[in-house]
């Protein structure tokens, strides 16, 4: 069959127009604002943001070319002053589902990673948007049309963005809409602390309860004498606390150990931040434990306590438990410095994103 040139042109244009489609992830926020927000890579600081999107959000995009992504401002009664930033964007098929994400950027990138965009990105000056509906208009949206479209072949999509600020063009407060799953673990402070840090209650150990989720990295952190050794111990709670001195350490009687077992022990260092004003709070030691995405960890818990060495002082002990339900977001966000190999992973929080495909 031979087509006339006019008919062929019409057919191409018509099919091109009809094939352009959009998909918002998560779909629940296609038109309405979500409860949370997130900052934008490079709007004011060097930042890498890696978003993993599970296949449950991408039904209908299989076998299609992804041609653009968009971020929408969050609802707020304020004008966001615009600016611009320099982005480099890679897309790939991640080797695992979002809830199995690593806090190492490289581990989440698929072998088929393609640089789909590099260039200047405009953050528009955006007038107040009160919600609950926020339209995907040009003034509410950051749009990145890819130089190289990416074929989605199923599985978890990894959208890897490195943003660099452009001097004189910062948008210091331009917050994008973000989805947030309201799940968290629990913590109970058992006391037992002593030493110079943590105020009158000597509460110098902490746990981020929002990090106690299957698939997340549980975050334990403590403040102590800079450059001394921070020993973290995990075990079962003792019904009766025992003075640290009973273990042979030269410590004050108020330094109490609340652990009946020592199931895991790690040796870290209290590292001070590079700001003189923060020296009084001590150095920070931080331990991360990857919680498996397994039903067995739901509601499971332990007790954690720190010892500063060689000063032989104990932290407050904390009994903790993993959330009783996993995050159902099926997305993950890993963000941090582009100079670092690792970042902060959240499996309960991620940008609302609109994908354009054809």
């Amino acid at each position, binding site marked *: 069959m031979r087509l006339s040139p006019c008919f062929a042109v019409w057919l191409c244009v018509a099919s091109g127009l009809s094939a352009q489609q959009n998909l918002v992830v998560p779909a629940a926020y296609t038109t309405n604002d979500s*409860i*949370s*927000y*997130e*900052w934008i890579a490079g*709007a*004011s*600081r060097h930042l890498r943001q890696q978003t993993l999107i599970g296949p449950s959000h991408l039904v209908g995009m299989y076998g299609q070319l992804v041609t653009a992504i968009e971020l929408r401002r969050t609802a707020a009664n304020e004008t966001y002053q615009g600016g611009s930033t320099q982005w480099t964007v890679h897309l790939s098929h991640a080797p695992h589902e979002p809830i199995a994400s690593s806090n190492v950027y490289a581990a989440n990138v698929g072998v088929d990673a393609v640089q789909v965009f590099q260039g200047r990105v405009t953050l528009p000056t955006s007038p107040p948007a009160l919600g609950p509906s926020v339209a995907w208009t040009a003034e509410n949206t950051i749009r990145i049309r890819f130089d190289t479209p990416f074929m989605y072949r199923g599985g978890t999509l990894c959208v890897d963005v490195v943003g660099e*600020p452009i001097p004189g063009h*910062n948008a*210091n*407060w331009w*917050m994008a809409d973000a989805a*947030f799953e*309201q799940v*968290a673990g629990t913590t109970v402070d058992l006391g037992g602390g002593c030493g*110079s*840090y*943590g*105020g*009158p209650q000597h509460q*110098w150990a*902490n746990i*981020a*309860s*929002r*990090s106690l989720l299957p698939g997340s990295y549980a*975050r334990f*952190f403590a*403040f102590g004498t800079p450059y001394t050794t921070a020993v973290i111990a995990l075990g079962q709670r003792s019904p009766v606390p025992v003075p640290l001195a009973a273990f042979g350490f030269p410590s004050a009687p108020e330094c109490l150990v609340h652990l009946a077992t020592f199931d895991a022990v790690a040796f870290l260092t209290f*590292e001070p*931040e590079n*700001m003189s*004003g*923060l020296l*009084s*709070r*001590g150095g*920070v030691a*931080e331990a991360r434990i990857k919680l498996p995405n397994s039903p067995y960890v739901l509601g499971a818990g332990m007790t954690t306590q720190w010892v500063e060495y060689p000063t032989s002082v104990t932290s407050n002990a904390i009994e903790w438990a993993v959330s009783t339900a996993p995050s159902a977001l099926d997305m993950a*966000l890993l*963000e*941090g*410095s582009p*100079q*670092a190999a690792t*970042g*902060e992973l*959240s499996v309960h*929080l991620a940008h609302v994103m609109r994908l354009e495909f054809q």
Partner: protein
Amino acid sequence: MPLIQNGEGIRVTHAVPSGGSVTVNVGPNDSTLEINVAGSSEVQVVEVPPNKDAVIPVPPVPPGTILFITVGKGLRARVLIVEVIALAPQGP
């Protein structure tokens, strides 16, 4: 009241009332923020709520005291420095 943000991804009002409370807006995905009175070894840790607007109690410290508000650690650390002011007298 004007906000300080300095492009740090977190922001708060320039001055915070002693013994009152203040809201810190948190752009990054960190789940806690830390408040520390300058010169003190006590650190108050506050969970970031889902709407990312963390309401923090301001310690009853003398006006002029400096507070450090910190999110993250190391290369990810974001810090704001704010001054505590006298709490405005309350009406009857």
